[in-house]
């Protein structure tokens, strides 16, 4: 079946008309977070109630992606007045479906426009989360889906698309912040019949689940971004590399690819043009290092997941030695809005060097935890104290951790640091892919440093000597601190090893593995000092 760009609009109208026939539409979060606390039972309960009350023509129950406030799930949103209900139980079905008054339900109702968790957010990547049914392509079309792809294919040359992304100032959301337009240009200028577009969905930082939520809640958005990228750089084949633990994301993505192929949105003639683009899924086996781009390429090729030395960089020699564009899920999710609304709109959001928004997975000891999307430049303090509501039970924030095992901690007195690539690096942490772990006064920073080193030690592929052997030795030293057995000599050796790993490791995993330790030492040296053997203090070896 083919769908022309004009037909896309008609399909969207038709779906919108269908949606208007309902008096009420109830959006149930069906992402992994809400599913794990009974979201499926709530959705089934609502559907059953609708059926029992004979209201099928008036009330529709829709499954949607993550709405953000994961700690208060299962969530249900009432479309007519944008009211969000927290911790919904199957028993609440009658009150929701028949709009009958229920005091208990009212007490769990929040207004998304005024609730502090939502009020400060700016949703571009997550714009469809909570609105679109990830399992129905019509629902995505009704939200304006694939119109950016149609616009790119019919009104823009590939070079124009690259220029638009460059002008928007979008930078890679995987953590390093490389300018996306520059990367696209590098691939576009390669002369080669075969090029590849790869979406890195091997999200592995502890506590981070931004990419999973996007894939679960809005898989078509990622496919649209990849197809636009393919058109821009001259690639006809895309791969999404998803980690195997993300079963729901994989299944939603499979459904989305099948639907898009059936509609002629992906395949031999994309939207009835001469552009061919196919997408395949590759499932990772759970190795953290496979999120490193060259190890990821090795893994797709069926080889051992080990990084390759760079240069050559993937835009020159990537998958099977062909020019390859690798971007993160969130980066691809930003593409369609940039094309639809223009680079000027996008580059007006954010700071001078960091444009647009960033999604963070806020976890830890906060009152609310879940996904927030904020404009670049938003102070970290605003996210932690206003949106996440500070520490649950009223404790004091000690530090936050961003960037996972490659990042570092930001102490409380620096929380006014704005969220942008340069500012976070300046305080010793990094943007990372978007994990944000909030710690209170009871957290031991030495233990946190040891935990992240253990993670790197377990996840090191072992190819290069400093990462394979150095992470093990650093972990042993940090364990000595945790056991109050450390000496000055151990502290000195810990710093020497940190410098060695940073300077000599083959890939980013080893180079950044010392970061959590170094920032902990920088901001909380007294905690390390307190862990040393009393007799050994001040003794130099």
């Amino acid at each position, binding site marked *: 079946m083919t769908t022309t760009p004009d037909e896309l609009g008609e399909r969207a109208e038709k779906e919108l008309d269908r949606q208007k026939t309902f008096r009420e539409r109830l959006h149930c979060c069906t992402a992994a977070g809400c599913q794990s606390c009974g979201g499926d039972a709530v959705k089934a309960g609502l559907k059953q109630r609708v059926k029992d009350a004979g209201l099928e023509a008036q009330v529709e129950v829709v499954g949607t992606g993550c709405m953000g406030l994961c700690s208060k799930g299962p969530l249900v949103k009432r479309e007519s007045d944008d009211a969000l209900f927290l911790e919904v139980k199957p028993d609440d079905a009658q009150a929701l479906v028949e709009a009958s008054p229920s005091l208990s339900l009212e007490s769990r109702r929040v207004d998304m426009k005024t609730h502090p968790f939502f009020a400060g957010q700016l949703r571009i990547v997550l714009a469809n989360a909570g609105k679109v049914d990830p399992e129905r392509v019509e629902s995505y079309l009704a939200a304006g889906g694939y119109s950016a792809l149609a616009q790119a294919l019919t009104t823009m040359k590939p070079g124009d698309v690259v220029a638009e992304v460059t002008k928007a100032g979008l930078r890679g959301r995987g953590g390093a912040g490389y300018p996306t337009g520059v990367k696209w240009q590098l691939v576009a200028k390669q002369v080669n019949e075969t090029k590849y577009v790869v979406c890195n969905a091997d999200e592995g930082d502890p506590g981070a689940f931004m990419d999973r939520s996007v894939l679960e809640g809005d898989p078509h958005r990622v496919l649209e971004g990849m197809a636009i990228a393919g058109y821009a750089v001259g690639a006809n084949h895309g791969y999404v590399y998803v980690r195997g633990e993300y079963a729901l994301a994989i299944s939603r993505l499979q459904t989305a690819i099948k639907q898009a192929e059936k509609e002629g949105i992906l395949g031999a003639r994309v939207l009835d043009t001469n552009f061919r683009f196919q997408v395949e899924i590759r499932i990772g086996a759970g190795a953290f290092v496979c999120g490193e781009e060259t190890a990821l390429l090795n893994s797709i090729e069926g080889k051992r997941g080990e990084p390759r*030395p760079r240069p050559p960089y993937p835009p020159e020699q990537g998958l099977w030695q062909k020019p390859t564009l690798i971007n993160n899920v969130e980066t691809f999710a930003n593409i369609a809005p940039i094309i639809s609304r223009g680079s000027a709109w996008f580059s007006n959001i954010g700071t001078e060097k960091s444009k647009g928004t960033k999604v963070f997975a806020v976890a830890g000891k906060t009152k609310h935890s879940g996904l927030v999307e904020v404009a670049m430049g938003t102070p970290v303090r605003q996210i932690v104290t206003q949106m996440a509501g500070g520490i649950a039970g009223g404790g004091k924030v000690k530090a936050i951790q961003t960037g996972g095992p490659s990042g570092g901690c930001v102490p409380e007195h620096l929380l006014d640091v704005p969220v942008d690539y340069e500012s976070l690096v300046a305080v010793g942490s990094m943007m990372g892919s978007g994990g944000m772990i909030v710690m209170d006064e009871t957290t031991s920073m030495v233990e946190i440093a040891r935990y992240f080193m253990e993670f790197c030690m377990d996840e090191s592929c072992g190819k290069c000597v400093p990462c394979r052997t150095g992470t093990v030795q650093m972990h042993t030293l940090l364990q000595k601190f945790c056991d109050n057995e450390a000496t000055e000599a151990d502290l000195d050796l810990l710093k020497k090893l940190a410098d060695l790993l940073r300077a000599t490791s083959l890939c980013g995993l080893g180079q950044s593995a010392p970061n959590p330790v170094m920032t902990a030492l920088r901001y909380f040296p007294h905690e390390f000092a307190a862990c040393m053997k009393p007799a050994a203090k001040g003794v130099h070896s």
Partner: protein
Amino acid sequence: MSVKTLTIDGKMMTGVEGDTVFTVAFHNQVQIPRLCHLGGVPDVGACRMCLVEVEGRSKLSASCMTTIEEGMVVRTDTEQLREYRKLLMELLLAEGNHVCSVCVSNGNCELQDLATHLGVDHVRVPYRHPRREVDLSHERFGLDQNRCIACTRCVRTCDEVEGAHVWDMAGRGEKLHLVADLGEPWGNSENCTKCGKCVQVCPTGALFTKGSAVGEMEKDRSFLKYIVYGRERHQWVKKP
């Protein structure tokens, strides 16, 4: 092929486009320390011993994988590099069970020689004393995992030169280890041609000829040069 001129340790040198910094330095009598590099098989940049400073690059570069560029300025032997190499060597020595006094390669060991060259007189990090296997199932050769430094020379030689691909690496991080076929005892390997090339290229006593006594295992890598040279020139048969 164009000729490129570069400066290595203050001396002007020339090489052909595509040459690596390591090769050009080697041909000009500058020996950069290395463990995983082996002329004749593809490089992997794993041991990090051959890291050098290249002016204008913020990160250190593995000289075995860095192709030369016109006007490049390279330093191979700064105090900083020497300190990094020494600590890397100490990490390697602490990782396995390198007991020279009972090793067949004692006195003919690249790891031992390099440690001496780098001036390692003690190891600052604690020894790991891992429990590792010894595989004596092969009729001619032995594998002592205690002495393996995971340089993968054997893996690459068996795959690229002999074409048998018996060896591979399994596990990750500290548990990384060499396996024959799909984790079989070496003696059961159906792919092994018993050629012994892996034994000759191994820089330590990890792969050895059975029956060698302490210090007796001397390795000869010259065969690689002839095989690779012959292949490059398609010299399949001896000329009459």
